[in-house]
């Protein structure tokens, strides 16, 4: 298979190998997160090893401020920025189909473009295809949304796009999983490691910097990033729960949306939407204020683009809720569904993939830990 990665990927990996080899010899940072101990157990630091370590790194930046070899030291060690570049590289490498890897190479503009097109496409089609006296009428009855955009169209488009996207991401993660297990240290079975990996993922234990939080902005330790990420992540899960409950109402109780303000789907969705907005805005704020030194600046547009898209999904959803009994409902619904469509399309081709690869890396790490702590520790004088 031809290499689709751009020519600089070997330079990125060579630098990561140099950096992590020095970390393996030093080993002062093993208390901060899982990366350093995992690295000591993979002294060869192959491309697969580095992709694994990069996705294990949560970018908390504690090691940057602790590093006795950070620039201007001539060793110029910058673990967070180096691993961010490798992470970026790994998203591209595991994109499926390979032709779409280009979307991840310039992920910021690509995410922005696809989101904008999808977001504008649905309102445009609605304006063309839906009679205006329906579109701009005030709908209060059960099934009001489907009067504007038929239920069948909505669910068919959603299922096809989301299904394809989940499949594409699944193939990428499966290949990543195969590669990071190749030539790896001994590990327990995945199901024994699952509780630990799930706990690491759900609590973002590795964003705790060994107990004091992250260096989100500067040398001070805070829990801002972890907190905002939790708001976004759990907000997102609440929105998923809202959609699932609504589907249950629709199919099993024959209750059609829109649901009352104090119904379960609306309460879940509202809480989730507020969480997502707070989380995305907070993360953008943290990133913009953050010390640029431990940051790989070229990876930031991808972060901002995805955060912007998720903010738009949540914001349009909440505005739709607020104005659903007005004549604006039809277009707002189309706008909201446009952002959702953009998100569905971008699941495997945006920064969103980080969650899947990180989950896989954490599971691998938990498997290796379950097998017992490694022997990679050398006695220090």
């Amino acid at each position, binding site marked *: 298979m031809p290499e689709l990665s751009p020519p600089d990927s070997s330079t990125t990996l060579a630098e990561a190998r140099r950096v992590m*080899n*020095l970390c*393996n*010899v*030093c080993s*002062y*940072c*093993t*208390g*901060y997160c899982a990366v*350093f*101990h995992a690295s000591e157990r993979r*002294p060869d630091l192959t491309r697969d090893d580095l992709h694994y370590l990069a996705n294990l790194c949560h970018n908390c930046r*504690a*090691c940057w*401020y*602790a*590093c*006795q*070899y*950070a620039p*201007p*030291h*001539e*060793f110029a060690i910058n673990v967070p920025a180096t691993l961010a570049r490798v992470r970026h590289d790994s998203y591209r490498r595991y994109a499926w189909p390979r032709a779409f890897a280009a979307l991840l190479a310039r992920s910021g503009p690509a995410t922005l473009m696809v989101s904008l097109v999808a977001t504008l496409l649905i309102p445009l089609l609605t304006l063309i295809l839906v009679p205006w006296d329906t579109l701009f009428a005030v709908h209060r009855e059960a099934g009001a949304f489907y009067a504007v955009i038929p239920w069948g169209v909505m669910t068919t488009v959603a299922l096809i796009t989301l299904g394809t996207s989940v499949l594409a991401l699944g193939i990428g993660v499966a290949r990543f999983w195969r590669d990071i297990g190749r030539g790896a240290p001994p590990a327990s079975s995945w199901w024994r490691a699952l509780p630990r990996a799930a706990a690491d993922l759900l609590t973002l234990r590795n964003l705790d910097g*060994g*107990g*004091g939080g992250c260096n989100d902005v500067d*040398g*001070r330790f805070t829990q801002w990033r972890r907190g905002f990420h939790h708001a976004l992540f759990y907000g997102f899960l609440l929105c998923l729960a809202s959609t699932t409950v609504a589907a249950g109402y629709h199919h099993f109780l024959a209750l059609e949306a829109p649901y009352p303000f104090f119904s379960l789907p609306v309460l879940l969705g509202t809480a989730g939407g507020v969480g997502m907005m707070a989380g995305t805005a907070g993360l953008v704020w943290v990133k913009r204020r953050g010390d640029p030194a431990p940051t790989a600046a070229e990876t930031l547009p991808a972060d901002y683009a995805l955060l912007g898209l998720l903010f738009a999904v949540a914001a349009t959803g909440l505005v739709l809720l607020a104005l659903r009994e007005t004549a604006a409902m039809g277009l707002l619904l189309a706008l909201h569904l446009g952002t959702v469509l953009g998100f569905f399309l971008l699941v495997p081709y945006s920064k969103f993939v980080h969650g899947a690869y990180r989950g896989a890396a954490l599971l691998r790490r938990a498997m290796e830990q379950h097998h017992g*702590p490694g022997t990679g*520790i*050398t*006695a*220090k*004088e």
Partner: protein
Amino acid sequence: MNDVLVIGGGIAAFCAALAARRAGASVQLVDSAPRHLLGGNARHSRNLRLVHDAPSPLFPGRYTVEEFLTDLRRVSGGHMDEDLARLMAERSRELPDWLQAQGVRFQPTGDGMLPWSCKTAFFLGGGRAMINALARTAEDLGVEILHDTKVLDVRLRAGDHHHLPACREGSSLTLSARTVVICSGGYQANPEALSRTWGIDAAAFLVRGSPHVRGEILLSLLAQGAAPAGVPGACHLVAVNAMAPAADGGIVTRVDGMPWGLVVDRDGRRFQDEGAEITPRRYSFWGRRVARLPGARAHLILDATGLRRAPPSIYPTHRADTLEALARTLALNPAILRDTVDRYHAALRPDGPEDGHTEGLEPPKTRRALPLTTPPFHAWTMAPGITFTCHGLKVDARARIMTVDGRPCDGLHAAGMIMAPTVLGTGYVAGAALTVGAVFGRIAGEEAARRVLTLRPEGEKCLN
């Protein structure tokens, strides 16, 4: 005028500054290094030797005052001051709580990621993280910190008004304070001073820590009649890779894996049993050996098998397909290196509990005597890396500098490596230097503050 002037930027300096500030004194701390090198040698440190009576999250087991003193006595070459060593051991017990109250975090041993040690506690993230925490707390409490500021000299005299000439960014200034705490370390980054003992080879030493620890104040105070401790020119040395930076290489430049190969001098001849030392003391063992060689350089020669077994290094090896070619890249005489290896091979007795040994070879190789036959052949060149000097000022239990006639200088305190030879003599055990710095830094800060506050009018209260 500040109450307390602290000279230095390592653990002793910050412990002194924080102790004095918390006692209510106004404190200025001046460090000769730029901001990014703040921390002195403590930047490269990792663990702290502490007495503890019971297991805790920081360490398993227990470590008593008597055990600490026994360990120190064993290494100190008879130069240890019993009373001060006991004081340090006793007060080391309080350090975890006190340092954590200053924002320092330790790595718990329970995470399974640390070398097993019941004698030392590890800073989470190492010494630079520890210094960052102390500096941040000091700034938050209102300690004024001047970087890149070099105090040129200190007069050895008691008194309540010290005016010290200093230099900052090329311009001179005078720093004034009621008491002075000197925490400016030894003179390991001062090859001129070292050459008085080591001769021309002092120039071949690589400095493992800060290049700013030149010891001018220490040497001046000794010349003015301060009581000395330790031995002139005595120092802690470690074998480091000769490619390491001239200063600030820290922990990762150490050379390890000697038992897996042969070590030869600049003539290509062996001079030491490579299998003799495999404990953590091996680094300093080889540092001392290499420093005494002509030219202060040696080469670790490995074949492909030996390299695989040796611990990883940040440096690439010199590499060649034959021993003769390797000798040429190292500027060794190929015939002599070949002769050295042939004689080693002739003496090999591959069986035995320690992976083989030699018989009838001088010096012998008592462990891991494996043949060097699998190409390619590799070499790392070793140099002595100097960590700190073991020659400093004698202080009393209040960290006051003593004069040769046995009197303490009121208002002039010292803490850290500048006075550590009073306690450590010419020896070293892991983590003890930081303990000296932290304990005597605190004592010096408290004593300095106590002294100035008794001079101060009533009514001003302590800061807590």
